[in-house]
């Protein structure tokens, strides 16, 4: 029910993002989704990739600070109100979202929402109970 996400520390310096993406490309790693969170001084790049171990190794080898976290991927129909429905269920369960980002899959029918919660287990329980589809790692990597 959980998907592994890679987080990379981004020094506030030009060209860092380009460097990371070309390292991944050189190692034949495909990015499924990404988001950048930033402050005035630094950023955090969060990535869902098809080969987690390989990506982690390649980036660490190039001198980047890398971490791994579990996130939840929720699939919703790509239409108005899709995200709102999920957030309503989360709000009613009093769950705190640490961060989230989204992407639309290739066919364009569904959107995938990536969530990180403070209470991951309870979030999974709540979302399943309310009838949402939670994707497994393999499903994301194969999208």
């Amino acid at each position, binding site marked *: 029910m959980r998907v592994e*996400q890679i*987080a990379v*520390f981004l*020094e*506030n310096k030009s060209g860092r993002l380009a460097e990371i993406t070309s390292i991944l490309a050189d190692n034949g790693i495909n990015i499924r989704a990404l988001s950048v*969170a930033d*402050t005035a*001084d*630094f950023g*955090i790049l*969060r990535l869902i990739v098809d080969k987690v171990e390989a990506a982690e190794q390649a980036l*660490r080898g190039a*001198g*980047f*600070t*890398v*971490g791994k*976290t579990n996130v939840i991927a929720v699939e919703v129909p790509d239409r108005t109100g899709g995200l709102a429905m999920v957030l309503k269920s989360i709000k009613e369960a009093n769950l705190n979202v*640490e*961060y989230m980002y989204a992407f639309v899959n290739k066919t364009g029918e569904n959107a995938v929402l990536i969530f*990180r919660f403070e209470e991951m287990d309870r979030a999974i329980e709540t979302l399943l109970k309310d009838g949402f589809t939670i994707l497994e790692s393999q499903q994301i990597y194969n999208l």
Partner: protein
Amino acid sequence: MANNKTTYWEAEMETLPRAGLESIQLRRLQHLIERVYRTVEPYRRKMDTAGIKPEDIRSLADLARLPFTLKEDLRDNYPFGMFTVPLDEVVRVHASSGTTGKPTVVGYTKKDIDTWANLMARALACAGTSSGDMVHNAYGYGLFTGGLGAHYGAEKLGATVIPVSGGNTKRQITIMKDFGSTVLLSTPSYALNLAETMEEMGIAPQDLALRVGIFGAEPWSENMREEVERKLNLRAVDIYGLSEVIGPGVAMECLQTTKGMHIFEDHFLPEIIDPVTGEVLPPGEQGELVFTTLTKEAFPVIRYRTKDISSLCYDTCECGRTLVRMGKVTGRTDDMLIIRGVNVFPSQVEHVLIGIDGVEPHYQIIVERDGSMDTMTVEVEISDKVFSDEIKQLEQLTRQITHDIKDILGVTCRVKLVNPRAIQRSEGKAQRVIDKRKI
């Protein structure tokens, strides 16, 4: 771990009762002043100006009446103007790097080289080194006194010396592993560099036979000691020396305590002074360390101001040595940054960083002037251990570092997290401060 039985090289001199030691010191001091007054014009001139004659030195307390010798005095008489013997009696010269001006040149007679080797052998024995050891000497060979000074002492002791010098870190590790090095001599920052490179090469400290590390030539903290000991699986001890006095082997920590380094007082007479007023401070107080050499022939110094901040402790040591101990050097009078009127030593920043769980002591201090305001930025490398995918965690970390620095140093700084190894690793002395202020 090394065993804790005291090993002496010259037991009698190292355990002399104070009265006996002081009488030797006075005799040697009187002889020195008389000789220097007679042979070195710059010293004679200074003493004449101060109205002191050699015969005025009747007790050790009279030392305080003599003028100080500054690095500038040595530079003004560059290269050989402070030598007391003709050059044909000088068998070797060393020089300090002249990063802030002309280098300072020091000379040694045959007897000086022998004295030095003997004191360095004392220092090595003090750290439990014996003839059975394989000494990996990673101090730089050349004009710097570290390499050759340690080398001659280790040979005198009868140990096997690997004169590996600085640099080429991977090869050094291979050599340590293949040759079975038991004693490592290097700067503390290079020891950390070795530890990191070992990690990259997949070599565990247990794969090496290192037992003790003798680290010096730059100030380092207790926290850094713990880190080096953990990462290299050895006992880390501190050594002190400077080329103007003789080189490494002026003072040495024993294995019994970590409360300072024994100064080889039968050869070097120490004082602690107030760096501003020049007044001699009582034992225990922090101030600038000043040395008078008692036995050197070619290049003796009288009340030489080291610019190192330390203190002296005359308590009896568990190792049995009666020699005074100097505290770890906590800073330099000229490394001292004055930021918005507050005195800041880089070692204090290091102390703060190691105190925070998971933070590595890899940092750089950047000082700038914005209008009429000094700003201090501390760049800290972010390790996998403290990294988080959440902004708020990293912001919490920078807030904690800022808070702790403010707490201990009394200065508000900006903390910038940077990638590991973004801060240039040193193969010798670490460059901790970049001062961009144009004053």
